[in-house]
């Protein structure tokens, strides 16, 4: 009833090809973005910001990055953790070597460095496909982690072997380091995700995205119609790693504050991949939904027994939590194999017809 597009006529190509061609969508998205900036900074407590919202935003950014590579360009990658580590360690080296450098510039540069590393490890994708390609990216994962662990230069020869986010300010506000307020860090993370989600959305609608999807759907056919696999695949690796690199830098600077290589181990790569698949391959919105699912569901499951006054031993509670989480993943896949984004879409279709479905 409310969600009705009747009467909205497109009189130009630009209008027809807009990201959100329906007025209601535009309004809702704009409201959501504003709400995301305003509400949590005013009302959320530190627990919500630090333990839920900030990691959610960072994972969402990484998931968008991986989704560009795996969902749009069809290249399965298990190296996300490694590329995030590249971003994190680059950001640490850059910001300690050039303390005057603006933190945003540091993040962007670390993204660029991660992109370069991504291109190198993307080279085997020209020959290897599918699950086999996972090995090339796993090699990246294990090698990069080993490298950062082994070479003390990356941690500035710290006796602790960990990297610590230095205190950096932007426009007079402390953005990273132990004294940075959670709302500030939240806003920075949100700004990055908002901008780069928009960029991603536009990328996949344009020439680049189309060539990625052509490669994904049938690479030989794509080559015949003039899509150059070398350029396209490597571009996918570069942009995906760029996203992951920024997410990695944020992971240390805005979320954890300090980290050892273990924080970027293979588990993280799997985690981001789960987000992408659960959320929906080939969907920017899906990356958000997947990140929300993977971050929120375990926390929800941990807090529920407390909320209803049921006090279980923590071990039992964790085990039940794992079982329910696993069960939910299977349940959602059976309900909708194409991810939460597809569910969303179905919901929208229904809403269009509601309340008169016929």
């Amino acid at each position, binding site marked *: 009833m409310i969600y009705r597009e009747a009467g909205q006529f497109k009189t130009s190509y630009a209008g027809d090809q807009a990201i959100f061609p329906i007025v209601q969508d535009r309004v809702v998205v704009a409201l959501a973005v504003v709400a995301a900036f305003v509400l949590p900074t005013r009302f959320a407590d530190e627990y919500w910001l630090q333990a*839920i919202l900030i990691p959610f935003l960072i994972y969402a950014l990484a998931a968008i990055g991986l989704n560009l590579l795996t969902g749009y360009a069809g290249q399965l990658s298990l190296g996300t953790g490694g590329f995030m580590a590249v971003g994190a360690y680059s950001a640490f080296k850059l910001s300690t070597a050039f303390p005057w450098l603006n933190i945003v510039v540091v993040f962007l540069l670390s993204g660029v460095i991660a992109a370069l590393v991504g291109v190198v490890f993307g080279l085997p994708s020209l020959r290897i496909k599918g699950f086999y390609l996972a090995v090339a990216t796993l090699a990246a994962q294990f090698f990069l982690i080993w490298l950062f662990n082994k070479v003390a230069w990356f941690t500035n020869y710290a006796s*602790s072997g960990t990297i610590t986010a230095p205190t950096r300010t932007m426009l007079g506000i402390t953005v990273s380091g132990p004294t940075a307020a959670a709302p500030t860090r939240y806003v920075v993370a949100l700004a990055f995700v908002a901008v780069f989600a928009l960029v991603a959305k536009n990328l996949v609608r344009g020439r680049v995205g189309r060539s990625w999807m052509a490669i994904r759907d049938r690479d030989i056919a794509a080559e015949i119609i003039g899509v150059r696999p070398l350029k396209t695949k490597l571009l996918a690796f570069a942009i995906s790693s760029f996203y992951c690199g920024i997410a990695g830098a944020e992971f240390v600077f805005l979320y954890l504050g300090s980290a050892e290589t*273990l924080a970027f181990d293979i588990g993280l790569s799997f985690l981001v991949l789960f987000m992408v698949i659960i959320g929906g391959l080939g969907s920017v919105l899906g990356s958000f939904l997947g990140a929300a699912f993977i971050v929120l569901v375990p926390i*929800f499951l941990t*807090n529920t027994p407390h*909320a209803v006054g049921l006090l279980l031993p*923590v*071990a039992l*509670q964790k085990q039940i939590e794992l079982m329910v989480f696993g069960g939910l993943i299977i349940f959602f896949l059976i309900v909708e194999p194409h991810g939460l984004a597809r569910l969303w879409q*179905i919901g929208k279709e229904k809403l269009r017809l509601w309340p008169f479905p016929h």
Partner: protein
Amino acid sequence: MRVRNVIVAVLALALAAGGLVTAAFAQSSTIFIPLLVYRTGPYAPSGIPIANGFVDYFSLLNERDGGINGVKVAWEECETQYDTKQGVECYERLKGKSPVLVNPYSTGITYQLIPKAPIDKVVVFSMGYGMSAASDGRWFPYVFSAPTNYWSQASAVIRYIGTQEGGLEKLKGKKIAHIFHNSPYGKEANPTLEELAKKYQFELTLLAVDHPGQEQKSTWLQVRRLNPDWIFMSGWGVMNQVAIKEASAIGFKMDRFIGNWWSANDSDVVPAGDGAKGYKGATFHAPGTNFKVHADIVKFVYDKNKGTGKKADMGAPLYNRGVVNAMFSAEAIRTAMGKYGNKVLTGEQVRWGFENLNLTEAALDKLGMKGFTHPVKVSCEDHEGSGPVLIQQWDGKKWNIVSDWVQPMREVVRPKIEAAAVEEGKKLNYTQRDCSKEK
């Protein structure tokens, strides 16, 4: 289709609602201590006894003494699975209940909490782990690692090896291998060992084992070729069990194989069966249950069916670690009460208690812990106390103490700590405190 959507919508709503309810109610008449435990996941075999020891000792305090000086202790466990991210979530969740101190029980989580400690005014008590540099209290007022730390431990182990060889000067030309978990934790001991190798001219070989350490064939092939006189191990998790098994399989003399205090628990030696006989480990408290405190725990906790674990599992090194850790925490609170009164304290007051903690032999005796652990005195400069180390040995059934208290080499370790504290402190924009101005 509609039913399905309804289910999804309900789930989504429940999700949102459940997440909102995060903070429960903190009771204001008790001292709250959050326990970050790991009773599940790959490190559960180590995490379970520690957590049990902790909880049992606090239960004992409440049951026997009615708390600390009459103020009851409240605690809440939070499962971290030894994962840093889950640890942060736990800390943030429990922070709302105004805790006075936190025991992270993971090097990774400790590093997360150190910068937060002075801001949230919560003491980080990383007993024998965490950041060695934080032992310099002038830079890290809120972090305590008493009674000792990794660097002191490494030097004490070398001293022990020296006495076994007939004097430290006999170490010259001996071959010592350090097998370590390839992580910041595992590498902690390396710089100290390297310095000691130079000083006493023994031949040090560093062998890294990558996480998780399920497969160590190549490491032990290297050991076989090297044929070291002694092996020191900083292992963790499954790495310990496999290493002990491999060492016995290649016929290495087990009494020349010493694990650090995270590599010498019952769970580490049991899978290797008889092969583990003779294996040694460092510790800073005795194993076993022959102490009054254990009898009390049985009497006041287990006999009332309030025990967390099995009675038979008491006395494992890591169970006793939990007990000692809880005791230190309680005594620091007691010390603080001496100044601030017998009431619910703040983190700042407990910090003062830690800094002025002086556990004498007499005090330990009173706690039923005579001979269980060594007296320790913490000060503003020294948050570690350079506590001495014991060597325990596995006889196939239980651990026995086989050494006297071995003193660490403070003259070697302390300057390194001070140098590292400057470096780590500057990273956090800290300044050095003047300890003469502290009361």
